[in-house]
């Protein structure tokens, strides 16, 4: 599903190189965890995959379903099924969550040449997905993310993910700012979306989230490169021993 080949990327504004020859393959149906110390380029990678223009790819390629996506802008990538659950979801004042969902779903359908959703169909889908995530219907009437608690924001992210039905889901530190109950709800939401034709990339600092969203593969990112790949036991290792050994071995 996703193949990143020798990717080099830098911050467009000042030219600082963040990703330095990164290779990563994620297959359909796979849940891949990306871990790594602060500043290793985890969040940057999520932005580059989703097409944020603050970063420039200088070398290498990103293949999604076998095709390079480097020339596509963020909205095109989204419509093709790449979804990023933000670490810090952004407030959109005056735009009801419901309205935002409708615009997003219909814009994606438009891009793919599908018909717009009929209102009753749309409402039914939202209600079902919201109930799964224990989202209070009142929250859907409020402006998106405005005044939402940390838990509400993350749940709203997973709600969007469920409704937009992406093929590649990237979760950027979705566990940050969540208490244990909220973490369970969010993880259940993500697990419900696991399917043989969908891949999930989970970016996290902590093993904790991976107890709930159990990964197939774990990749350690350091200074813009994947320096070690393993299965879920690698995450446990890291939790117990820290990054020092792995970094030392790679250096």
């Amino acid at each position, binding site marked *: 599903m996703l193949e990143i080949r020798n990717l080099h990327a830098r911050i*467009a*504004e000042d030219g600082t190189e963040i990703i330095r020859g990164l290779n990563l393959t994620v297959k359909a149906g796979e849940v891949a965890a990306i871990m790594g110390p602060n500043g290793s380029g985890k969040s940057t990678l999520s932005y580059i995959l*989703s*097409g*944020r*223009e*603050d970063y420039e790819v200088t070398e290498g390629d990103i293949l999604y379903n076998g095709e390079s996506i480097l020339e596509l*802008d*963020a*909205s095109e990538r*989204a*419509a093709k099924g790449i*979804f*990023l659950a*933000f670490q810090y*979801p*952004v*407030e*959109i*004042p*005056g*735009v009801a969550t419901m309205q*935002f969902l409708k*615009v*997003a779903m219909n*814009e*994606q359908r438009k*891009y793919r040449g599908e018909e717009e959703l009929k209102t009753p169909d749309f409402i039914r889908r939202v209600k079902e997905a919201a109930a799964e995530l224990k989202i209070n219907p009142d929250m859907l009437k409020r*402006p998106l993310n405005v005044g939402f608690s940390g838990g509400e924001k993350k749940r709203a992210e997973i709600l*969007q993910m469920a409704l*937009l039905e992406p093929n590649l889901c990237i979760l950027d530190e979705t566990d940050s700012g969540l208490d244990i109950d909220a973490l369970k709800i969010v993880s259940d939401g993500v697990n419900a979306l696991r399917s043989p034709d969908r891949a999930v990339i989970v970016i996290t600092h902590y093993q904790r989230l991976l107890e709930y969203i159990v990964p197939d593969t774990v990749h350690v990112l350091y200074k813009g490169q994947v320096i070690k790949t393993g299965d879920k036991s690698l995450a446990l290792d890291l939790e117990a021993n820290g990054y020092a050994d792995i970094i030392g071995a790679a250096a």
Partner: protein
Amino acid sequence: MAAVQETIDQVKLIDVDQYKYGFESMIEMDKAPNGLSEEIIRFISAKKDEPDWMLEWRLEAYRRWVTLTEPDWARVNYPKIDFNAISYYAAPKSTPGPTSIDDVDPEILKIYEKLGIPLREQELLAGVKTSKIAVDAVFDSVSVVTTFKEELKKAGVIFMSISEAIREHPDLVKKYLGTVVPTTDNYYATLNSAVFTDGSFVFIPKGVRCPMELSTYFRINEKGTGQFERTLIIAEEGAYVSYLEGCTAPQRDENQLHAAVVELVALDDAEIKYSTVQNWYPGDKDGKGGIYNFVTKRGDCRGARSKISWTQVETGSAITWKYPSCILRGDDSRGEFYSIAVSNGHQQIDSGTKMIHLGKNTSSRIISKGIAAGVSQNTYRGQVSAHRKATNARNFTQCDSLLIGDRCGAHTVPYIEAKNSTAQFEHEATTSKISEDQLFYCLQRGIPEEAAIALIVNGFVKEVIQELPMEFAVEAQKLIGISLEGSVG
């Protein structure tokens, strides 16, 4: 910062092509020679077949006007206007004054059709979903037709052009004209009093709820003219009316002047809701041409428990100088001002309101949303005052500005004055930019940039849009979208 840079680049390309109403129509006109003098005023008055008192009123205003100097306190810059280079009267030869729909020049009807304003009543009725709206169509200096007049008359409502009202209801006009905006009020209002040509007159008698929305559609068509609109709306005790005003003009390289005066009078328990969608030609991408919109609008809550509400969506004009205000004279009266002012390209807007609290327990609310793009300047200027006897006056003001790009400006100039210690005034102001983060978030959800900006802007103005009558709300949202087209990639 790529997205915003793109936005700025696009704003630079902003072009007149986006102004949909810029077409020019060839209509043979009867036009006054350029220049302003007592003779010209006599000419206008004679054209309108006015009684002597009206002519005297105009002349008095003119004699005063020549002693005044143009105000310069607003945050707008423009070359000095040569008032003698303007023609103060232009009327279609075929339809020199209000007539029945069958006698209106078909070419003029076509223009209104093109503007999306059907004037034939059967067409209006055929327009299925919408409720009925009566229209007074003002073309340059004259009203050419007013629809649903008969039906309104049955309800006791008078809706006609001010020129007709001066002839047919002189007592009412005499009683109210100039009582809210006196001829001495300000430079442009005094000029208007001398040379006003047409506008609407509305009278809702005691206890009547006007059975339909009333509206006036102003079109400037002729070159080298000014339009001097005069509108007077009176709601007697317990009456209610909702009135809408729309305006457009052809795109030309020269600047044209629109100096209007609108007076509203609400007696005890009456309510007037006045909505404007102002879309005069804003000028081209280099700031050439466009309408100078110098307008005095004021409502007098003369009676107890009366209410006047102004809602405006300002997207047009090269320069806007406009402060729809409320005098809260009656005890327990209420004034409201809801405004969306969008400036793009080289547009300059200096707009706001005044809430003058005179009576006891009066309250007012101001919600102003300014959106600036391109190299435009967008100023909110407002005054809230409580006089000595205005016990328990209340005001809430919220002024929010949204900047698109980094070459435009937003300014807020509030004047607050309380002479009564029981007054409670609140003022909140914010300035924000559409952030990179917001844009990227929307894009990441599959919403293309143009749709994302429209979504964010519509969220920003939502509180005000909600105040517009339904039919206008949809129009206004589209219009805001069009005005900002080209400000996005």
